[in-house]
């Protein structure tokens, strides 16, 4: 029922350009008979301008986009970006083919999938990519770390398990960290939030595997700080596993009990990056440098 109303409104809405076009033709025909050539040219110009303005106003009303651009403006803007414009054409082709299929079940399924596509498109347009149940995010991670213009990578490792980043994908990512830091392409700093069971209150050093993991980074010049999780009880928003890539992007990793990635979210939203930098500064207040610890305590033999 609702769809029928929409269709009727759309048909009524589509009448006006025809009415406007016929009116314009009649006006120009009258002018051709009654006016001089110069006056007729001026009249045609005025009619064209009026027509374009009307289309623009109509589009803006009919296609209110997130940044309030009209369809005409959108097409115009997209035309300047060949890569996106190509995708737009491909999407339009697909939509046309979907639209031509009259099977109701097909349409129902297609619309459900399209809704999902629209939702994902909106997330991407918001600057965010989500990877669920996969370690493939590490490919994007590496691309970002290696990208020109990125000079500082700040990482917060929320270590709830001694196996944190000890698996093959984790070791490969660490190797990239070491390579880029040693090659002076990237400055890396890391704060480790360590679960109390891995670093009991009475112990000087955390769990040995973890200590070695931190030490390996320290000797390669990655500035390491660490803090017990319990020290952050009053500031739970600081407890997160994140990476701040310059001032460009923010990655958030969520792990299961076996240290496998449940979800990895990479956002290029500047406000989110700024907020993460602010949290990084607060976290640094609680954390102590690994180097300072080395100065005070012997490494267990």
């Amino acid at each position, binding site marked *: 029922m609702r769809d029928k109303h929409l269709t009727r409104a759309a048909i009524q809405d589509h009448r006006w350009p025809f009415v406007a076009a016929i009116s314009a033709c009649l006006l120009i025909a009258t002018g051709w008979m009654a006016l001089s050539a110069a006056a007729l040219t001026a009249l045609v110009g005025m009619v064209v301008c009026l027509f374009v303005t009307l289309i623009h106003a109509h589009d803006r009303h009919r296609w209110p986009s997130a940044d309030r651009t009209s369809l005409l403006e959108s097409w115009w803007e997209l035309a300047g970006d060949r890569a996106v414009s190509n995708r737009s054409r491909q999407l339009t082709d697909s939509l046309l083919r979907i639209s031509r299929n009259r099977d109701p079940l097909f349409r129902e399924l297609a619309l459900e999938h399209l809704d999902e596509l629209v939702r994902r498109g909106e997330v991407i347009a918001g600057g965010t990519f989500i990877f669920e149940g996969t370690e493939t995010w590490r490919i994007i991670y590496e691309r970002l770390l290696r990208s020109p213009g990125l*000079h*500082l990578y700040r990482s917060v490792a929320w270590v709830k398990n001694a196996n944190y980043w000890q698996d093959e994908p984790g070791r490969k990512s660490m190797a990239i960290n070491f390579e880029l*830091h*040693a090659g*002076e392409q990237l*400055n890396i700093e890391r704060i480790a939030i360590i679960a109390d069971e891995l670093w009991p209150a009475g112990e000087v050093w955390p769990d040995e595997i973890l200590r070695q993991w931190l*030490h390996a980074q*320290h*000797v*390669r*010049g*990655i*500035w390491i700080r660490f803090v017990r999780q319990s020290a952050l009880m009053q500031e739970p928003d600081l407890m997160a596993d994140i990476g701040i890539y310059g001032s460009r992007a923010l990655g958030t990793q969520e792990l299961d009990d076996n240290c496998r990635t449940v979800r990895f979210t990479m956002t290029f939203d500047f406000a989110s990056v700024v907020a993460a930098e602010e949290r990084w500064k607060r976290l640094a207040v609680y954390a102590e*440098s690994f*180097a*300072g610890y*080395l*100065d005070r305590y012997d490494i267990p033999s």
Partner: protein
Amino acid sequence: MPPLLYLDTARLGPMSPAARDAQLDFVRLSAEEPSSLYFEQFLRDGFRTWPDSYQRRFPGLCTWSGIAGLKQAIRQLAGAPDEWQVLLANRSLSLVELAARAMFRVCRNVLATDLSWPTYQRAVETKAHQTANRVTVVPLRDDILYRAWTVDDVATYLTDAFITHQCDGIFLPAVDHLGIRLPIHRIVKAICRQHELRFCMIDAAQAFCHVSITECLNCADFIVAGSHKWMGGYLPTGIGLFGRRQSRSLIECLLRRRRHLRRLSDPMLNFVEQLDNSEIDGESETVNLTSLFTCAGAVSDYRSIPPGELTQRLTQIDSSLAAIPRPPGDWQPVRPVSDMRSRITLLRSEDRGSSPRRAEAVRKVWLSAGSIVSAFHNGVVRLSISRGAR
């Protein structure tokens, strides 16, 4: 005509007797036995391992106790603990570059002052630029020399600057080339009370064998010194010292990695580290080793001076100054408060009309009066009084 008084040790110190003997006998050895069967062993383990006949023929090399022996002697001279590492290089600049490389592994913004030796400063800035980090330079010299800043003033000022500019590393000279002796330990302590200091790099080129650098050892991650100024080695040898637990493994790892990648650009540093680690690869550059033997001779001479005598000489600087032959005119000292003085003193002519202002002309006037000094623009001269000049 009385002999000229040499007062330019801050530029190049006079060669000590043992250094001279070592050089002369090494030159003879080079002429008579350029590549002896025993040479490698002699180089590694010292004079005592040579056959008696060699010892009798080249007695001037008796101060050579091998690479490890020289390193140990330098450690003792500096007052450094046994676990500290000593690096030897053809040029101290190579060591500055190495230290800067280590420093910018962990630091994003390093605080320096206008007291830094320009060549070293440039090396640090270049490394900062290469690694997308920063060096913040703050002025200090005029406040110390002309406004009588105290040790506390300097420590407070540098701490404030460190915090204001959000620095995390520091690069300072223990004694600058114009004789200001910075209270390094006080400064570092003041900074560490309020902020995180990741790396402290000290230029001790003018301080080593001149003033005590013991307090620097408590707070510096890397100290750069040399043999050719106050030590009396004459031939330049860069000396690097590091060993703080918080940074030792970082520097060792960096050094090892660069050695393996053959990226140690300084031939002597590369050779000595290979020799010390028994990793001679047979592909290293031919190295001029003479400065190692003169360095060993100078260290030997320096260690023979009773410790109390060195302190006494520093306190007697005013009487030493008064006895120095100088050109006529009113030469007034320009120097910091007593806590920051060294054996380097600046004098400025107050007779602005009659005295020459150009550096070369001023130097000549002093030379005519019997003293060899360094001269700067505006009629300022630098007198650096070595242990030979009383």
